[in-house]
């Protein structure tokens, strides 16, 4: 009997064949792949424009075979607004971390969502500033030790972690807001579907779509890759519950 070899899983076309600079066990790579698969799925590589942010994901243009505009720190949604309004037929997404989106860029993301700009925002929340060496971020969990909160985050002094997916869902202009994780194969599949949905909403001109992804940062958490992966469900999901917080395409 003749036997043929069939591929089950291969690299998405949009993802360049380049080794990433991310640390071993960092979840950025998985999220990059899911975004690339979404672009492949809709066949919009030639009209997709990514907006790079500042943080570990700053080298977005090295890894995606699409056009990328590098935005000043936190301003990716503002740059994305400009790109989308000038090129309404393009597919625009921003890719931001929690230092970029939830700290310096809070104003930009809230107003872009509130205006209902037709773009997709991918937000990777790893509860720390990764690129600069593990300082406390707005999303750092209460009691979490970082280089700038060596005794643990004290909510009386430093306030509470911001739940961005819920915050964005409250705004009138938002079309879709969800929080996903990529720590198990099942959750990776669900995250892939959610990111595809967020791109689909833009392509169908349905509204602003926001996806928060809980990610691990083994290096700055001072953990092994497996310990950091386990922390995502062990510690983060208690404070950052997964789910879809707003979806205007589904009637209540």
């Amino acid at each position, binding site marked *: *009997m*003749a*036997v*043929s*070899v*069939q*591929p*089950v*899983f*291969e*690299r*998405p076309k949009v*993802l360049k064949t380049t*080794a*990433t600079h*991310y*640390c*071993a*066990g*960092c*979840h*950025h*790579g*998985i999220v990059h*792949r899911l975004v690339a698969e979404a672009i492949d799925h809709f066949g919009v590589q030639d009209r997709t424009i990514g907006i790079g942010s500042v943080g570990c994901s700053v080298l977005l243009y090295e890894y995606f075979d699409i056009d990328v505009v590098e935005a000043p720190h936190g301003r990716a949604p503002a740059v994305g607004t400009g790109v989308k309004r000038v090129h309404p037929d393009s597919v625009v997404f921003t890719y931001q971390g929690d230092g970029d989106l939830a700290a310096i860029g809070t104003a930009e993301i809230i107003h872009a969502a509130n205006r209902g700009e037709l773009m997709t925002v991918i937000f990777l929340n790893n509860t720390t500033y990764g690129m600069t060496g593990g300082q406390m971020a707005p999303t750092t969990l209460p009691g979490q030790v970082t280089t700038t909160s060596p005794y643990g985050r004290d909510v009386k002094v430093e306030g509470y972690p911001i739940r961005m997916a819920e915050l964005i869902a409250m705004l009138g202009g938002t079309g879709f807001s969800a929080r996903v994780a*990529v720590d*198990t*194969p099942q959750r*990776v*599949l669900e995250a892939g579907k959610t990111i595809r949905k967020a791109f689909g909403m833009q392509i169908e001109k349905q509204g602003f779509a926001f996806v928060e992804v809980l990610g691990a940062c*083994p290096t700055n958490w001072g953990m092994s*890759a*497996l310990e950091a*992966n386990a922390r995502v469900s062990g510690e983060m999901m208690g404070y950052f519950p997964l789910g879809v917080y707003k979806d205007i395409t589904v009637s209540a």
Partner: protein
Amino acid sequence: MKKIVIDEEFCKGCGLCAEACPKKLLSVGKKLNKQGYPLVEISDEDQDKCVSCALCARVCPDVAIRVYRQKKAQ
């Protein structure tokens, strides 16, 4: 036939694939790649036991795993 192909220059030996494998066929070995990361390995014997579920590839942060399966012609 190799069902699991590991790209040695991409693998960083984080071990997430080894944990995800339902049959525990993958392990982080001692061989290092050019970047100095230990590589994930699978023996030829275990290649035969692999069911091509691709869970390892889906959790790999470096897209270092390609998965194939045998298809019997009708």
